[in-house]
């Protein structure tokens, strides 16, 4: 069981890191999701692995699984879920406003790109106010 859990954490993390190193927004977001799954499993394991044990302390129950990591995981899941939603919204907003979902600063580096285009991507433009925020 230890090998199963450990390799699950390892493979999820490796897949997540691979995806995060991609250049487009969607794989990167998937990668962060994978890594947050990995950390959730890891947090479970931090309270020692126990199968079929109650997570409560009661009279007469002598074997139990540590309940604190479960509470931590719950918090971590809620937060990771919210964060993923936010990054999806910002990613979609960035894609819709620039018609480009590359996560790296492509235009800045592209040789023939017009530098003034970046300078005047002035955020104060009121016509952009409808963008999701």
């Amino acid at each position, binding site marked *: 069981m230890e090998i199963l859990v450990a390799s699950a954490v390892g493979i999820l993390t490796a897949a997540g890191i691979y995806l*995060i190193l991609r250049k487009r*927004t969607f794989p990167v*977001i998937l990668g*962060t999701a994978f*890594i*947050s799954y*990995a*950390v959730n499993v*890891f*947090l479970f*394991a*931090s*309270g020692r692995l126990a199968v079929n044990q109650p*997570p*409560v*302390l*009661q*009279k*007469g*129950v*002598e*074997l*139990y699984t*540590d*309940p*604190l*990591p*479960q*509470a*931590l995981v*719950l*918090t*971590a899941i*809620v*937060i990771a879920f*919210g*964060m993923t939603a*936010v*990054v999806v919204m*910002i*990613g979609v*907003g*960035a894609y819709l*406003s*620039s018609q480009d979902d590359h*996560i790296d*600063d492509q235009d800045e580096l592209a040789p023939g790109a017009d530098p003034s285009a*970046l*300078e005047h*991507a*002035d*955020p*104060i*433009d*009121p016509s*952009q*106010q*409808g*963008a999701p*925020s």
Partner: protein
Amino acid sequence: MSHWVIAPVLLPGMMAAIIILIARYHPMLQRTFSLATVGLCLAIALGLLVGVADGTIFLYQLGNWAAPFGIVLVADRLSVLFVVLTLFLAIPVLLYAIGSGWDMRGRHFHALFQFQLMGILGAFLTGDAFNLFVFFEILLLASYGLMIHSGGSTRLRVGVQYVVFNLLGSTLFLFALGTIYAELGTLNIADIAARVSEVPAENSGGVRVAAVLLLLVFAIKAAILPLHFWLPATYSTAPAPVAALFAIMTKVGAYSIIRFYTIAFPPDLEVTQGLFDTWLLPGALITLSVGMIGVLGAKRLDRLVAFAVIGSMGMLMTSVSVFTPEGIAAALFYAVHSTPATAALFLLVDVVRTRRAGGDLTWAPAPPMVGGALVAGLFFAAAIAMAGLPPLSGFVGKVLILDAALADPRMAWVWAVILASSLIAVVGFSRAGSVIFWKAHAPTSAFSGTSQEKRPESQGALPMVAIGTLMSAIVLVTVFAGPINRYLNATAAQLFAPEPYISIVLDTPGKVIEYKGKTDKGQKDEAESGKEEEGHGS
């Protein structure tokens, strides 16, 4: 008195909800609520400052559960210092946002601002590592919203990078916390401190990993090389008041490093030897060099200020990684000085953007600004403070840091890098200032017409008042450097004698659930603290 400790966390949180629910369509009401909350919090924080100045440590047990099973908030000299600093920064920033109309260029500025304050203040006050994670997430989530406030494609794209970088940082934080819990069975900072010294040397691998992971997480927040990549683009693209508020965000990372590595993993601890002298000090020195070289190399005024932030964080962390009471005290003084200086520079960049023809921030020649003399004067003063020239507080901070590094074996490195990088910063700032303010001339005769049209709306005196407040704060820090330094020395002394902190947190009685089952492990009663954590997350 100890109940007041939670007020700086609760008030902004409640007010953010009220602003969204009640004042959603009433700009004036939002502004009033926002300012009133910050003012009230500042009054409470100053009260706490008076309370902790004599060395008292206030403890607030949430739900009256005893630590380490419940979550505690702890207000000691260090926490309250940063709380006061944050709120002192928040008022001018808010005034500027209101005066320049930034807060109305998108939705929910004030609500997000309050949530951001709640996260920052909570991170400073909490005495629990997992709770620190939760407050980090609150401040990050609010900062994502603030960062892309008023939209724009550049800002959104940079926002994606910023969010992804910080998501990874948060995940790393969770890995670190999981490791700490697996090794020590607790996440309360004082309890970690009590247990970590009992870890046998041959079994300390996990604790070492956890300590290094935590340092990495905080280094991301503090933008220490090579983990600084999120900062320049984020700070230079964020709306000016937001960038100015973010001046305190890097300090959250510095605060966490100081807090954790004085109390939870004290410098004389065997398992974390070498973390500072071998790793953090070179990192900090490189951060300082790269930041100041970036100041010289930046092609735009906003990037220049963003690199100045990196440089100032390098300076601060250099002083921290010397890790003596003098070093910590000097670092704290530098934090007190550099926060308003950075914020003032970011706000001045925005003033230049609105007043310079075409909103141009590059070194291209442009016609003179309207009211350029005042802006130039303020920029000059802020740049002097930032570069650490006399007579302003940056100089005092730098002298304190140099003095603290005297006893360090790598003193020659520290002195050489600090002095050389200061020179580079001076050159960079002078170049920027002279190009933007002195070499102003009209390339075409029809400049006035075009530049007038580009200007969004005429601004009142409020933005200048806000910047003036920040600048006078710098002057006050310089004038009262003696008393401030005495308080900071006492703070550092308190940090290096953590026994009162640990005993107050762990020995204060509170509720504990009695249970009568026999267990095979030593980790009892953790269900209670689990409940608390859960309540915070949802």
